[in-house]
């Protein structure tokens, strides 16, 4: 199958700042690919390159994304003093669509995102989650084969976020190629593929469960035994003595630890050490050398 969007060795600098460096990434029709990274990792630059609104300094994007991509920018603005429907109609005209097509496709999209009852409401009076759904409808109006969405769920609450991701999966099932950026690692779990972005480079890429499977550590959680509570300092000191320790991460009433894969789960007396399911955040920590950087190992 041919990728719907293919970034080949793409780099982009702004003056002396290298925002994106040597990125290879393909998105195929029918899949949702999530690009995850903290603020400043290069997500927005990469999204703009994939959408064809920014030219790379090196490498290329094929096929030419211009005219084929529905691009939802991180600071996408709707017109707050226009209604939901007027916003859609405005985008329809921008794309040069016939009124009849806007009417048909716009109605279908509003129904799909659940905004048909709010057709005549001012966009400025919508909640954050509803605004993002309207924005999605606007960029889908001209039926682009590729969707590039830059942090569409930032500031959107978990319920609305789950609904939004469901919409994106439906779009992919209909044959579109979908590239989404986010800083929430937990959002990548249900997608087809995830790429971890760090300081402008892709650290790793693959199915979320495959990436988690690559983690060369055993994850566990150390807590006080029984109903007891321990001061965080005590918990950390006990964790430091665990055989095979790679890193500690205090979390609430316990400490999450990464251990060597063959290390025994041997808690000191008075403590409980339970296996914990590895998550994408652990993979990210591993690949960015978290143990070395925070623990001085």
């Amino acid at each position, binding site marked *: 199958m041919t990728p719907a969007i293919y970034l080949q060795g793409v780099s982009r600098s702004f003056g002396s700042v290298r925002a994106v460096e040597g990125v290879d990434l393909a998105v195929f029709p029918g899949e949702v690919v999530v690009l995850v*990274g*903290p*603020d*400043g*990792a290069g997500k927005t630059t990469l999204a703009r390159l994939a959408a064809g609104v920014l030219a790379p300094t090196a490498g290329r994007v094929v096929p030419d994304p211009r005219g084929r991509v529905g691009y939802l920018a991180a600071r996408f603005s709707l017109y707050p003093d226009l209604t939901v429907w007027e916003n859609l109609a405005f985008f329809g005209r921008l794309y040069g669509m016939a009124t009849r097509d806007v009417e048909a496709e716009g109605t279908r999209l509003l129904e799909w995102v*659940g*905004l048909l009852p*709010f057709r005549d409401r001012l966009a400025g009076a*919508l*909640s*954050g*989650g*509803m*605004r*993002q*759904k309207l924005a999605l409808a606007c960029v889908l109006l001209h039926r682009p084969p590729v969707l590039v969405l830059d942090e569409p769920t*930032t*500031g*959107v*609450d*978990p*319920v*609305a*976020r*789950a609904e939004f991701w469901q919409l994106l999966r439906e779009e992919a099932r209909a044959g579109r190629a979908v590239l989404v950026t986010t*800083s*929430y*690692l*937990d959002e990548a779990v249900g997608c087809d593929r995830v790429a971890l972005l*760090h300081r402008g480079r892709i650290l790793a890429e693959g199915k979320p469960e495959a990436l988690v499977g690559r983690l060369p550590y055993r994850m566990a959680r150390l*807590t006080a035994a029984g109903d007891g509570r321990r*001061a*965080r*300092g005590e918990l950390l000191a006990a964790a430091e003595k665990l055989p095979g320790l790679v890193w500690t*991460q*205090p*979390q*609430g*009433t*316990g400490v999450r630890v990464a251990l060597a894969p063959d290390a025994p789960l041997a808690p000191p007396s008075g403590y409980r050490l339970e296996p914990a399911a590895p*998550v994408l*955040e652990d993979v*990210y*920590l591993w690949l*960015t050398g*978290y143990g070395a*950087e*925070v623990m001085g190992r």
Partner: protein
Amino acid sequence: MTPLAIATRDLTRRFGDFTAVDRVSLAVEAGTVMGLLGPNGAGKTTLIRLLLGLLTPTAGEGQVLGHDLVREPEAIRRKCGYMSQRFSLYGDLTVAENLTFFGQVYGLTGPALAERREELLAWAGLGDLRHTPAGQLPGGLRQRLAFACAILHRPALLFLDEPTAGVDPVSRRRFWDRIYSLADQGTTVLVTTHYLEEAEYCDRVGILLSGRLVATGTPADLRREYGEGGGLDRVFLNLAQGRGERVPGSGE
């Protein structure tokens, strides 16, 4: 027994026909990092405004740091700090000037202010950047400065709104180390967040839906009781759906 930093009984606030906070009974021990989760419009902001004495409850009662919400709001506010995700620093003032400004707002002056400012510059690792305008700091450092500004007056209760959303894992670890060090010295911290990974860092978490506090417990307790083997996101969605909550968009 550890004293309670927050104790409310059936705290309720209505706006006309709309009940924003509905019979919330909340007990938070001093030195706890408490997370408050809820969709937009669930009443998180209204609850915080009630706890700060900025809004009068329609019914119910409560004490914060031993002071009555209705009769002693000034005493409460003097002892509280607040950091919002879109924190308001002055971009064209330097790092040190921002600390001085907020110190003066909190009534610190002279040598006491200078001493506290230096202490926090060192604590936040911002000493070398004291003459840099706050507007030129990268996100992570700006966040640290905002945090330092929020704790200048040594608040006993600190409100943090999504304190580490979007921050890289290493910076997040360092940020939480600072939050925990305050909690270990007895500061009570109330974190509101949409970010379920962030909620895992809290000692206890309360879930607010349509103004009601529907569950509280440690993250592990909540996962066991409502998570069906999933994480806090599963807990949250199960509770939201269990209440027949179809939040169109998010309903703020």
